[in-house]
């Protein structure tokens, strides 16, 4: 837990904000982890907001200078968060949870992001590229006005964009890009986005490409203590049980996730 100074804060698409703040000392993180951010010091919005780590500027550990996240202003808490100005402090817990697993030998990874599921793909792309894995990003949005991070991701490899209304890229869904040919070239996939997208991706990849899904759930504590954020998973013994998104996840091995 730390109070971190806001370094950048600006709108990057309609109601989509880019927020960078100073990194805590000895930052340790993996892509896919989240930060648990308090939006006010008062009690009117008590719970912290989980927001994925998007990008870490500088090198790891004590050398990293800033953490950036990208978030959508949707409800009351993010509305308050948007009002914070450069120079103000932010009460941040984390990085928390279980991020994406990188596999050293991978030659080609597909990064699949939908809407506010796109941000964690940036740091993931960075780290995959660094270890020599080629990256193709497939990202989907409602429409062009809320599209984010396309440019950032294009630094690491090809970016395929889909929008529901066709206002940017392909008209359709991210899964429309997932041809047999493309999947045949991929060693791994990493996906984050709305549940319907994750369900479709899981089905599409099943038996073809191994990979990970990053899930969302409403949280209380964010650290595994309150049992608020459970999600159905296939356990090691084959039964279906609950895992905690905040602690066991948010990232799970794709075949383990059981959608309702």
């Amino acid at each position, binding site marked *: 837990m730390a109070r971190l100074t806001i370094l950048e804060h600006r709108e990057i698409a309609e109601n989509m904000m880019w927020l960078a703040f100073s990194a805590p000392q000895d930052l340790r993180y993996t892509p896919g982890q989240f930060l648990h951010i308090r939006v006010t010091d008062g009690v009117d919005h008590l719970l912290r907001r989980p927001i994925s780590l998007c990008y870490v500027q500088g090198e790891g550990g004590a050398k990293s200078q800033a953490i950036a996240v990208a978030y959508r202003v949707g409800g009351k*808490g993010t509305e308050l968060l948007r009002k914070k100005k450069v120079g103000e402090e932010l009460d941040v817990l984390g990085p928390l949870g279980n991020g994406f697993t990188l596999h050293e030998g991978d030659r080609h990874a597909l990064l699949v992001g939908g809407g506010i599921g796109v941000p964690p793909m940036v740091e993931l792309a960075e780290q995959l590229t660094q270890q020599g894995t080629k990256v193709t990003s497939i990202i989907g949005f409602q429409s062009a006005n809320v599209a984010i991070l396309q440019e950032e991701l294009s630094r690491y490899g090809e970016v395929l964009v889909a929008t529901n209304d066709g206002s940017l890229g392909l008209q359709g869904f991210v899964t429309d890009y997932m041809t047999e040919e493309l999947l045949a070239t991929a060693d791994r996939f990493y996906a984050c986005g709305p549940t319907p997208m994750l369900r479709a991706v899981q089905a599409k990849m099943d038996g073809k490409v191994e990979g990970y899904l990053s899930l969302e759930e409403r949280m*209380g504590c964010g650290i595994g203590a309150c049992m608020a954020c459970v999600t159905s998973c296939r356990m090691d013994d084959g039964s279906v049980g609950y895992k905690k998104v905040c602690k066991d996840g948010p990232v799970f091995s794709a075949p383990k996730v059981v959608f309702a």
Partner: protein
Amino acid sequence: MTVRDVDMSVRIGPITMKNPVTTASGCFGFGKEFADFYDLSVLGSITVKATTIEPRLGNPTPRVAETPGGMLNAIGLQNPGVELVIAQELPHLRRYEIPVFVNVAGTTVEDYVDVTKRLMDSEDVDAVEVNISCPNVKCGGIQFGTDPLQAAQVTEAIKRVSRVPVIVKLSPNVTDIVAMAKAVEAAGADAISMINTLVGMSIDLNKRRPLIANGVGGLSGPAVKPVAVRMTYQVAQAVSIPIIGMGGIMTAEDAIEFIMAGATAVAVGTANFVNPLACPEIIEGIRQYCLDHGIASIRDLQGAAWKELA
């Protein structure tokens, strides 16, 4: 009025807590997660998540919602069952050398008795806290929490099998909290903890359905503090067993408000989610308050709001 040090210790029946702060059940898991943030041995005691006889999966999600100044939860008593709790969760708490209170839940009197009996096999249980007040489980104990007669019956039954002190946790969702408190005192309760959550609801305007999957949930956090303080104030004057007060405690001042209302000890719940360091900060804050105000023992403040001024 200068004091050098403050006697922070309090007694819950035969148990001595080195300071008056415990954790509220369900808000601290079995302690593990918070051990990453601080040394749990600073706590006055630790109260763990509700335990039932069988493992329980709990309710579907969403299980929590934010409300003005508070939150709703409907976890639904998810827990691995008393066997696993005894085997896997409790032993590691011994190293902190603080009393461990185990919250017990069930659907029938037999359930409560069975869990308690099973817990008596463990050396790691210093008190049982009887959760007769969880609003989030159908037939899950709430009837015991709203009827003095049934509350007394379950208390008596547990007392008969427990060799450790029995703390009964009261529900605030009643017309007459004092009647409930007197009933469980008469039935042999060693202490009372109060309050559990108020039954509430939030509606998702987009879905046009209750936001929490369970429909209703339990309201906790600062929003409920005035209700909790009021009930503590009333019950403290009506019973002679100690009270563990809770409901919305975020700061040391909040804790002292409960103690002045008549609580012997306090529990911190929702605050742990907002600030994982809430408990140690509150403990230090109480000590500092006493130093600043020349109070030699925290026990001197107990019930100060209704006791004759010295």
